[in-house]
Every structure is written in C-alpha cells, then in structure tokens.
C-alpha cells in the first residue's frame, strides 16, 4: 500500500487530504499513480491532476515523473510552493 497526500489548492479542489492505494500492480512510477488517480475519480480529479505545474514528492523528497515507487512509499502531489 502507498499513501498519497495532497496540499494547498490541490487538496481543496480534490476535497481530499490523502488517499491510500492498495493495488500497486501497473503503478510502477509516480506518473502512473498520477494518471491512475486522474482517471479514477471523475472530471475534477482528471483536470486537477493533469495541470502541468504539479509537484510530486516521494518520501518527502521532490522527484521527477519517472521515479519508481515501492510498497510503503509516501507520495504527495501539490502546487508550486509559495512560502517565505
């Protein structure tokens, strides 16, 4: 199982802070997880998760879309950061 967190505007748009995914077959990379989620929960998720500026992290480190995932990983999808 992996856990996927959402933050900022994306969390509000999806109306979800996190989601668990149990079946990881065919979800080898973070981009495949993104595509899976965008196709599974309707048009709002599809539009929100297909924005080009979404940042993805694995185990709290920002990664590229082709990064491989493993059982137990913590993923997060979020908009560009605006701190400081």
């Amino acid at each position, binding site marked *: 199982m992996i856990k996927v967190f959402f*933050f*900022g*505007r994306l969390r509000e748009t999806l109306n979800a802070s996190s989601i668990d995914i149990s079946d990881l077959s065919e979800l080898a990379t973070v981009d495949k997880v993104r595509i899976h989620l965008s196709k599974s929960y309707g048009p709002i998720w599809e539009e929100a998760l297909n924005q080009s500026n979404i940042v993805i*992290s694995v185990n*709290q480190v920002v990664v590229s879309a082709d990064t491989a995932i493993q059982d137990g990983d913590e993923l*997060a999808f979020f*908009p560009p950061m605006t*701190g*400081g």
Partner: protein
Amino acid sequence: MSSMIVRLQEERFEPGSLQSTLFDETNRTGGLVTFTGYVRATDAKGIPLKSLFLEHYPGMTEKSIKGIIKEALDRWDIESTCVVHRVGLLLPRDPIVWVGSAATHRGDAFNCCEFVMDYLKTKAPFWKKEETEEGVRWIDSLASDGDRIARWDAS
C-alpha cells in the same frame, strides 16, 4: 561545527530575541545578517487583507529547510543559522519568517541569509492562501522567485 536552528510555529516571534539567541550560539561571530518577512496589509491589487493562511507539509517542510541550510553551509563559512517560519492563520503585518545567519565575516553571512531565503520561497513546501473582502484565494508562485534561484545556480 556550524549550528542550525529550524522552527515551525503558529505563535508570533520576536526578531530581536531570535537575533540574541543566534548571536549567543558561538563566540566567533563577527557579522550577523537577518531577514524578517511580514504579511502585507493589502493584496497584490491593493485590497486590504483580512488574513493569510499558511499550509505546510509536516515533516517535509522541516527537512527541506535543513537541506537548504546544509547547501548554504557547503558554499560559505557560517557559524550558525536559524530559520523560524510560522504556519496557520496570520494577520496583516504579522511576522511570517525569520532567517538569521552568523559568520566570522559579513560576506558569508549576507550570502547565506539571502540564499536560504531565496530557496525557502520556492523549495520548502508552504502554500499561502489570502482572504480579503473579495473572498479567499491561493497565491500563485512568482516567476521572479524562480529567477532568483537561477542566479544562485549560475554562481
């Protein structure tokens, strides 16, 4: 050995007392540079701000800030560094962020403070949402913040 203090908190902070704490970390400091970021009283269009909400990613935010400081320590000779960043609900003119860097010589302290602040804006997971009488809106990242990072990458 350089010291590093990173704190996320909902409470207000006092820049003066943070500066004293940082100065007391070592007796080798010859220059101490600080930056305080505040909540503006208006939004980008000049409309009075009611509040600013700061969301973060617990765990990753602290880790990211420590990573940014470590990168600065590789570049400059720094005695001690401190970052305090507030989260949650803030009011206009509240202090948001404080960065202090202490070094034997001022050049290193100036560079470290500016570098940490520039990276913190775009590489540490915080998201700002502002409220005015017109409603609530998430703030978009600025291209100019990315430009400031590119400047360090080139140096």
